[in-house]
């Protein structure tokens, strides 16, 4: 018998999860779509709505993972889950499949439909009600819908690649948090993440100021490649890391750390006790 992976067993596990948690997950999905519709409805800038929708999507993955792994708050549920005849790898993989193969495509597809419909509506409105010229239309609505190519979305606070990396990373944070904390895991993981966020935003500036010897303001939290240096005369100079370093840091932050978090989750599944 294959004790690591078996298609039949894995299928049974997915089916069981859908039966037991499908309704709840569906409810969360609806709750995620509602604020997105609201954001599009209230749009002043379509790019802001698109960015906000992605941020809502990031928030939602943490909830989805938490629901999928909400098996350890009660000992009886934890015992039932841990003694279910499936391998630790299958249990871990089922969470990944739900997050990346079911939830992510569904979220992006629904977001795309919402985006197309609203953009179409706003274009229509611009022509019929506000009598925009073709040039104005082109300037305000350069695409029929949101384009997943980053270079076409330079105006977005949350471009698609950044969304994907954060989705992967925050999913990983939630997996690790849910497996480390039995009680109030969502709250505890959120607090730790928030703590890291605050620490990095202060420590980054302090650390770089100490190294360079001038006042340095790092451009954003978890950004290690761009900063602004202020000299004694309060004159500011933007500085960037070399492209090779920038790429290295980018891949480290966007691929290595999220992947490491998911792998820690897999290891934690094997170590998990009641």
């Amino acid at each position, binding site marked *: *018998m294959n*004790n690591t992976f*078996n298609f039949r*067993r894995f299928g*049974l596990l997915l*089916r*069981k999860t859908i*039966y*037991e948690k499908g309704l709840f997950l569906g409810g969360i999905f609806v709750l995620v779509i509602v604020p997105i519709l609201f954001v599009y409805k209230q749009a002043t800038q379509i790019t802001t709505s698109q960015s906000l929708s992605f941020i809502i999507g990031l928030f939602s993955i943490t909830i989805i993972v938490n629901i999928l792994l909400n098996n350890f708050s*009660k*000992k*009886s*549920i*934890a*015992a*039932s*889950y*841990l*003694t*279910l*005849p*499936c*391998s*630790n790898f*299958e249990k871990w993989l089922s969470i990944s499949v739900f997050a990346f193969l079911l939830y992510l495509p569904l979220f992006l597809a629904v977001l795309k439909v919402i985006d197309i419909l609203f953009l179409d509506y706003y274009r229509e409105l611009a022509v019929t009600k506000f009598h925009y010229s073709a040039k104005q239309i082109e300037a305000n609505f350069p695409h029929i819908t949101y384009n997943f190519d980053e270079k076409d979305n330079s105006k977005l606070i949350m471009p698609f690649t950044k969304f994907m990396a954060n989705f992967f990373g925050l999913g990983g944070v939630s997996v690790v948090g849910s497996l480390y904390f039995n009680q109030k895991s969502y709250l505890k993981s959120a607090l730790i993440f928030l703590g890291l966020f605050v620490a990095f935003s202060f420590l980054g500036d302090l650390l770089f100021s100490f190294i360079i010897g001038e006042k340095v303001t790092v451009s954003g939290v978890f950004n290690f490649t761009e900063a602004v240096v202020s000299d004694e005369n309060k004159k500011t100079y933007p500085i960037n890391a070399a492209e090779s370093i920038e790429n290295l840091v980018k891949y480290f932050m966007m691929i290595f750390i999220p992947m490491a978090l998911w792998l820690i989750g897999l290891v934690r599944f*094997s170590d998990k*006790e*009641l």
Partner: protein
Amino acid sequence: MINIQNLSFGYNRNKMLYENLSLSLEAGSIYGLLGKNGAGKSTLLCNMMGLLFPVSGKIEVVKHNPQKRQPSFLQNVYFIPEEVAIPSISIHTYLKLYAPFYPKFNEHQFYEYLKELEVPSDQKLHKMSFGQQKKAIIAFGLACNTQVFIMDEPTNGLDIPSKSQFRKLVAAALTEERLFIISTHQVRDLDNLIDQIIIIDESEVLLKASITNINEKLCFKTVAELDENVLYAEDSLKGKTVVAANVMSEDSKINMEHLFNAVITNPNRMKEIFK
């Protein structure tokens, strides 16, 4: 079938619950694991199931290391904790979702057990009373036909007729290849059911013996006067009910509660008698 060698376990490394515990359990028996509240019965069962990991020592259950929680191990063992996990689904759906994980599951047996335990099979599990839920899970566990079936306080929440029905079903389900472990602090619930008794207290196995062995070495009777063979005595209407060393090879019926008290109050003498 279950081998525990030099098991040490503690929730806190400074205060160990078990140190160098060794135990061997064979198939074809129903073991009663008895102990006071907080004696570590559930902890021992969780170690056997791979839900808690020993600090040192070795546990082998159906030739597997439980700690790895491999599917080939998990489909051969079934564990009912004191409080059962009940999803918000019907019994039929529960069967559809959980039974395929256990290759030896017998659906016909399951419905028979439900009938015997008077559990309606058309209800939603979460809408049942605690006792009914527990009976449904016991029926499911029995129908899984796993080699090892471990139950932690299974009779908690069961009414009197259900307790006797439970004893009947478990006794009928035992085969030469299966091993049942039932842990409880309500020792009377296991009357006429178990054929092996394990009594633990203060991190130690005080007694591990078969019912036959206990009958040979101890006798349970009512006396007017206490003598040096008496290990435990309790006042009763007819005199004193005692547990005594069976020096005269008398036949008697085991009183589980008295046996338990005798072992707890006289652990050293018991060890001498059963060594």
